């Protein structure tokens, strides 16, 4: 399989660049690699030498190629002992059968197919009311507290949590049951003991939820899965963990970082406020430009030798695809390093590509679109309460990159 006429010289191994010059731009070395050696050798924290792909074309080709596995993946950052221990712990649990990001076909196909019907473009439209309800509550709360507020704590997190809770049929006030353990799991600095404890707590909560749905079914996703009887209770608990985790953290991070991006240069906010019909294209540009899954797509392992652009990836080697680098590829996007809210981001890889492309992407889009729309109506004068350089961001080695807090006024 080839993607272009050029044969790539992969060169010496690098470590994944994670240090940013500007909070809204990926590490600058990623762009340099994309230009010179878009498929290069990558040294992983355990010493393994694998591969890093940074161009748009290669990212798509690698993520759609069926010869790669996601099982027991190798993270390009973080303490390898912690990562290995956590994956060992997860795969030993029967619930892992519902955590689709950890699965290959045929198991992956079977579970994803059970879930896909809830996340269709039309299907997520059914949650518009739930999202609007969550938005109303968050906006009321912001007004009740009065400026300044921490936008993450008062808006971003509650809106995303309420939405996924409503969809799954989890009580909204149960937020802390999964937000806290999820943060520990996603953190680059937690110990293995902390992470295993968090995983256990998170799964205990999910098991309770499923047990509740067996006894008191309601009109929600988890109840429907239980009633259908295609997945075991263990698998449904794993699904609950997957959806509660992926369903709140990512959207909350996009809401926080997206609002920061719109306010740190207020001409962006003003422009979008004046052109509400451009919201869809603006959301796609924010997704592309920010690419919050900063270490890239979950690392794949080659199941057999894969030849690409004159390079041979050997069976067993790890491949990390930098979504952020791919999303700034000038071969694909005009003015890739600008946030042009008028559009042009179609085809971006912020949600990934291939069979693991984000299951919740249409729900995410709807939440983002409705959230920014509501904010612009209710808080037209929204602004940062502190200078942009005083905002604290996630670490370059955390799973997601966003704002930890965002003090705003209006």
């Amino acid at each position, binding site marked *: 399989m080839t993607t272009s006429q050029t044969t790539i010289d992969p060169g010496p191994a690098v470590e994944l660049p994670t240090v940013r010059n500007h909070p809204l731009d990926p590490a600058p070395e990623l762009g340099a690699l994309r230009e010179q050696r878009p498929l290069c050798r990558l040294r992983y924290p355990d010493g393994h030498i694998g591969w890093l792909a940074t161009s748009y074309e290669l990212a798509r080709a690698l*993520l*759609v190629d069926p010869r790669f596995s996601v099982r027991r993946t190798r993270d390009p950052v973080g303490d390898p002992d912690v990562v290995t221990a956590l994956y060992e712990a997860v795969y030993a649990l029967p619930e892992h059968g519902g955590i689709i990001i950890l699965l290959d076909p045929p198991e992956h*196909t079977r579970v*994803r*197919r*059970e879930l*896909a*019907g809830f*996340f*269709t*473009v*039309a*299907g997520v439209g059914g949650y518009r009311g739930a999202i609007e309800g969550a938005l109303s509550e968050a906006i009321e709360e912001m007004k009740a507290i009065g400026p300044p507020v921490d936008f993450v704590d008062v808006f971003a997190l509650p809106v995303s949590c309420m939405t996924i809770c409503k969809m799954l049929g989890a009580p909204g006030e149960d937020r802390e049951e999964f937000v806290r353990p999820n943060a520990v799991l996603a953190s680059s600095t937690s110990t293995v003991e902390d992470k295993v404890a968090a995983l256990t707590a998170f799964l205990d909560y999910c098991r309770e939820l499923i047990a509740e749905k067996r006894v008191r079914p309601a009109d929600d996703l988890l109840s429907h899965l239980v009633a259908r009887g295609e997945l075991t209770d263990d698998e449904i608990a794993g699904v609950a963990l997957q959806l509660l985790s992926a369903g709140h953290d990512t959207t909350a991070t996009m809401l926080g970082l997206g609002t920061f991006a719109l306010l740190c240069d207020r001409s962006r906010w003003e422009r979008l406020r004046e052109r509400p019909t451009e919201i869809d294209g603006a959301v796609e540009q924010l997704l592309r430009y920010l690419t919050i899954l900063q270490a890239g797509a979950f690392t794949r392992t080659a199941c057999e030798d894969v030849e690409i652009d004159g390079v041979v990836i050997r069976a067993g080697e790890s491949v990390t695809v930098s979504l952020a680098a791919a999303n700034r590829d000038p071969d694909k996007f005009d003015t890739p390093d600008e946030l042009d809210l008028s559009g042009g981001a*179609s*085809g971006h890889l912020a949600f*990934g*590509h*291939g*069979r693991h*492309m984000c299951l919740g*992407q*249409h729900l995410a889009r709807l939440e983002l679109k409705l959230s920014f729309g509501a904010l612009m109506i209710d808080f037209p004068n929204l602004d940062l309460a502190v200078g942009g350089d005083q905002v604290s961001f996630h670490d370059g080695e955390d799973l997601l990159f966003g704002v930890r807090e965002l003090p705003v006024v209006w």
Partner: protein
Amino acid sequence: MRIEADRDVCIGAGMCVMTAASVFDQDAEDGRVLVLETEPPEELAELVREAARLCPSGALSVLE
């Protein structure tokens, strides 16, 4: 132009529907593609090509 959809490969991502809603739909049960117009009119050709490009599983082929 003719559209072919491989429903075994399709993962139900819905990028095709997002791109060209008059040509594609999704099965409400498992999200898999339903091609509403296998031979779409010329004015939709570019959108259909974009839909095929965006498909994350490679399930869509466009025969020109």
